[in-house]
């Protein structure tokens, strides 16, 4: 079992993705989904040497819901800035956010979350991987944005992955 599915969560995800793409339950698509769930993890394993342990799956589900809600908020926020603020008043700026996360996958998710949520885009990271460079669309108070990222997202990801 372990040899057939070296990465059970990825296999499950691929299986579900294929079934949802096909959009119907037939024996043929079940077999195809199973084949993909076995082959793709095996083929991609060399590029992914250390599999991250996803320690708390329910916490991760809660995180996904939180991020979705924040995406809706971010949309309204950015729409408000675009529509109702004069360009001179928009104070954009760069922020350096030091991060404590060590797992590359967790950092990737954090960077993606930052891009999708209120007025911030992840642009770069330091070459040692401990600081993220973030561009904020409207940042009258940069420290509060950094604090928000650290408490709202990073703390949760740390609990999920590390």
């Amino acid at each position, binding site marked *: 079992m372990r040899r057939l599915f070296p990465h059970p969560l990825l296999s499950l995800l691929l299986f579900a*993705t294929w079934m*949802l*793409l096909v*959009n119907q339950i037939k024996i043929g698509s079940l077999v195809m989904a199973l084949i993909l769930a076995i082959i793709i993890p095996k083929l991609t394993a060399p*590029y992914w*040497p250390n599999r991250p342990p996803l320690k708390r799956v329910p916490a991760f589900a809660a995180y996904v819901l939180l991020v979705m809600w924040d*995406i*809706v908020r*971010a*949309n*309204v926020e*950015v*729409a408000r800035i*675009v*529509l109702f603020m004069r*360009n001179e008043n*928009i104070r*954009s700026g*760069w*922020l*350096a956010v*030091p991060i404590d996360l060590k797992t590359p996958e967790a950092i990737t998710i954090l*960077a*993606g979350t930052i*891009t*999708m949520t209120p*007025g911030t*885009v*992840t*642009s*770069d*990271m*330091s*070459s*040692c991987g*401990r*600081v993220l*460079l973030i*561009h904020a*669309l409207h940042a009258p108070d940069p420290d509060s944005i950094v604090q928000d990222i650290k408490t709202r997202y990073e703390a949760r990801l740390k609990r999920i992955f590390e």
Partner: protein
Amino acid sequence: MDQIVEYLLAALLVIGGLFAIVGSFGLLKLPTMMQRLHAPTKATTVGVGSALIASMSYFWYFEGTLSWHELMITLFLFLTAPITANFIAKAQLHRAINKEDLPPTGVGKEWATYDPEVTAVSPVLLNDRDPG
């Protein structure tokens, strides 16, 4: 009942359309490239999202079939939008933005874009590769 659902779905479509238009308007209105990056990465996710929710609910309510493709579109959108945004930001860092304009990293290392030690391919990957 049918009519109420129709109105709800129509409202979703209109909201989606409004957000999509705001995203495009932001592209025109905002003055710098980095600011323009914000409008389409965010304002359009809700635009596409609510159109997809409307489509899903329509087929579920009126046709009695549950369509999962919309969920997949949302998933792929959420996976690809941050990566695209990151690529564009990175290209901007290389082409149009000076190193001096960025805040210091504060840990004694450069931002990866400007660090000469960071090559196109991650050195970690190179080290892991079997030489034979």
